[in-house]
C-alpha cells in the first residue's frame, strides 16, 4: 500500500508544474492547459484524502471540480477565440491595454 503522503507529493509537484506553466508560457492555450493541470493536482488530493477517510465526499468534490473545469474551458476558449480574431495572437502580453 502506498502512503498518503506520496499522493500528496505528486499532487504538490503537479500543482507547481501547473503554476509554473501559467507564468512561463506565452500562449493562452497552454496557460489554460496549465490551469487544468493545477485543477487535476487538487483533484488527486481530494481523491486521496477521500480514500483515506473512507468516504465518497472527496470524489464528489472532484466531480464539481470537473464541472467547473469544463465551464472554465468552454468560456476560456471562447474568449481565446475572440481575442485571436481581434489580434491574430495568442500571446497574453499582446493584450496589455486596458481597453480598446
Amino acid at each position, binding site marked *: 500500500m502506498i502512503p498518503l503522503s506520496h499522493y500528496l507529493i505528486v499532487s504538490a509537484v503537479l500543482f507547481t508544474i501547473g503554476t509554473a506553466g501559467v*507564468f512561463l508560457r506565452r500562449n493562452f492555450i497552454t496557460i489554460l492547459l496549465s490551469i487544468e493541470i493545477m485543477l487535476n493536482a487538487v483533484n488527486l488530493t481530494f481523491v486521496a484524502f477521500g480514500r483515506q477517510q473512507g468516504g465518497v465526499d472527496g470524489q464528489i468534490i472532484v466531480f464539481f471540480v470537473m464541472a467547473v473545469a469544463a465551464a472554465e474551458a468552454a468560456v476560456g476558449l471562447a474568449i481565446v477565440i475572440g481575442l485571436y480574431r481581434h489580434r491574430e495572437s495568442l500571446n*497574453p502580453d499582446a493584450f496589455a491595454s486596458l481597453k480598446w
Partner: protein
Amino acid sequence: MLALILLFPLLGFLANASFGRRLPKTISGGVASAVMVASFTVSAMTVWELAGLPVEQRAIEQTIYTWIASGDFVLDLTLRVDPLSAVMILVITGIGSLIHIYSTAYMHEEADSEYARYFAYLNLFAAFMLVLVLGANFLVMFVGWEGVGLCSYLLIGFWFKKQSAIDAGKKAFVVNRIGDYAFILGMLLLFAHFGTLDFQQLAATVATIPPEVGVFGVLSIASLLLFIGATGKSAQIPLYVWLPDAMEGPTPVSALIHAATMVTAGVYMIGRNAVLFSHAPGTLMIVAVIGALTALLAATIGLVQNDMKRVLAYSTVSQLGLMCLAMGVGAFGAGIFHLYTHAFFKALLFLGSGAVIHALHGEQDIRNMGGLKRHLPVTYWTFLVGALAISGVPLLSGFFSKDEILYEAFREGHTVLWFIGAVASLMTAAYMFRLVFLTFHGERRHDAPAHPEPSHPEPSHLAPSHLAPSPLHDAPPAMAFALIVLAIGAVLAGYIGVPHALGGHNQLAEWLAPSFAASGAVGGELAAVGAEEVALEFTLMGVSSAIALGGIAIAVLVWLRRPEIAASMARRYPGLHRLLLNKYYVDEVYNAVVVQPIRVGSQEGLWRGFDVRVIDGAVNGTGAIVAASAGVLRLLQTGFVRTYAGSMLIGVVVILGYYLW
C-alpha cells in the same frame, strides 16, 4: 391581537398608498374608515380582555420580533397594553374612526388621487400613533413619536401648492425636531444609566431609588430632557409656536392630530413615565409651572384671535397646558382624564368649525361670520355642546376633568398654579363663547356668494350651479354623524370620573391606578376621603362652576349684548391688544433670536468658511493626492495578465508561509 390594532391602519395606508389613485372616493375613503373601525373593534376587545384580568396583572404584551440584538443589548419590538395605553388606544381608534368618517364628506371636493393620499396619510398617522402608545419601550415609542411627527408634517402641508401650508409644515417639523433631540438625549441618558429602555423595567428600577428631593440628579435631567421632548409634541412653552400654524392643514387633521391625539403624546409620555417623573420633583415643578404658564398665555392670545381654527388651536395649547399642570402637580390620573375628555370636545369643536368652514367655502375669519345658527342647526347645537364642555359647565365632561385638575393642584398646595389655572379657565370659557357668539349669533356679516376667492383653497367647489340654490348647507350626513356622536361623548365622557365628593366613584382613576401604581402620587386620590377634603372639593367645585359661568357671562356681555365694549377695550389698551393679536411677538422673537443667527452663522461660518475651505479643501486635496500617487502606482498596472498573476502568487507564498511558520 395587539399587532392587529395597528396592522389594520397600516393595511389601509398600504392599500390607499398603492392603489388609491385608481380607486373611486367611496372605496378609498370607505377602506380607510373601515380599517379604523376594525382597529377600534379590536382595541375594544383588547381592553375588555384587559379589564377581565386581575388588577395587578393588567398588562398584555406581545413581542413581535427581536429588533436589535447587539451584544448584551437586546431590544424587542414589543407592544404592551396596560390601563393607560388602553385609554389611549380607545381614544385614538374611536375618535379616529369618527374623524375618518367625517373626512369622507369633508374632503369630497378633492381629486381622487388627492383624496386617497389624504386617507393614506391619515391611516399611517393612526398606525404610528398606535405604535407610540402601544410601544413597551422607549425606542418603539420613539418610532411612533417620529412617525406621527412625519404624518403631521405631511398633513399640515397637505395642500402643498400653498406656500403658507408648506411653511407651516416645515415649522412644525423643525420645532418638533428640537423637542425630539432632547427626547433622544433623555432616552440615551436613561439607557446609559439604567441599561434598559423598557418602561416597566425602568419604572421598577427607578422605584427602588429615593426621589431626588432638593438635588438635580440624573433622573431630573433625564426627565427634564424628556419633558422638553414633550413640549415639542404637546405644544408647551417654548415650543408651542408650531401648533397654531398647523391649522393650515385640513380641519379634520387638526381635529385628529392637533387636538385629540398627537399633541397629547407628550402628556401621555409623562404619564407613561409617571414613576420617573415623580422621582424628580424638580422636573415636576418645572412641568407644572410651564403647563400653567402655557395655559394662561395661550388663553390670553385666544381671546383676541379672529381665525376660527386658530382660536381653537390656542385653546388646545391652553388645555394641554392644563394637562401638563396636572402632570406637574403629580395628578397623573387627572391629567389623563382631561386628555380623554378633551379629545372628545376638542375634536367636536374642530369638526364643528370644519363644518362651518365647509359651509362657507373656506371662510375662516369669525369677523365675516355671524348668524349661522339658523342655517347650520346641527353644527350649531353640537358646537354649543362642545363649547359648554370645554368651558367646564357643570355636569358636562370638561367640568369633571378640569375641576379635578384644579382640585388636585390646590390640594397639593400649589395655590399660585391653581389661581393661574382658574384664570385660564375663565378666559377659556370667555373666548369659547366669543367664538360661538361671533360665529353663530348676531347678524350675518358674511357674503358667501360674493366671495370670489376663498382665503383658503380648501373645498374649491365654486361652480355657480352649486352656489345658486343654497349657499349655505348644513353638515352632510357623514359629518353630522361624527358631530352628534362626539357631542354625546362630550356630554357623557366625564361620567367615568365623577369625583367622590359628588358621591361618584372615580372609575377612571381606579382603572389607571396600576399604570401609576409605583409612583405613589395617586395614593391620595384613592385614599379614603375625609370630610375636610370633601368640603374643599365642594368649595373648589363651586369656584370652578362659577368661573365657567362667569366666563360665559362675560362673553355674553361683551360679544353678544354690547359688542362696543370689546371695541372700546381694544381702543383703551391698544398696546395690549396688539400684543395679544400678534401672539406676544413670539414668532418674531424666535425668528430674531434663533432662526436668523443660525441662518447667518450657517451661511457665513459653516458654508463660506468651513464647508468651502475645510471640507472642499480636504476633498479636493484628497483628490489631488490620489491623482499624484496614482501616477506612481500606475506603473504597476501593466495590463500584463501574468504580472497580476505574479502578484497573486507572491501573496499566496507569503500567506502560506505565514501560516506554516
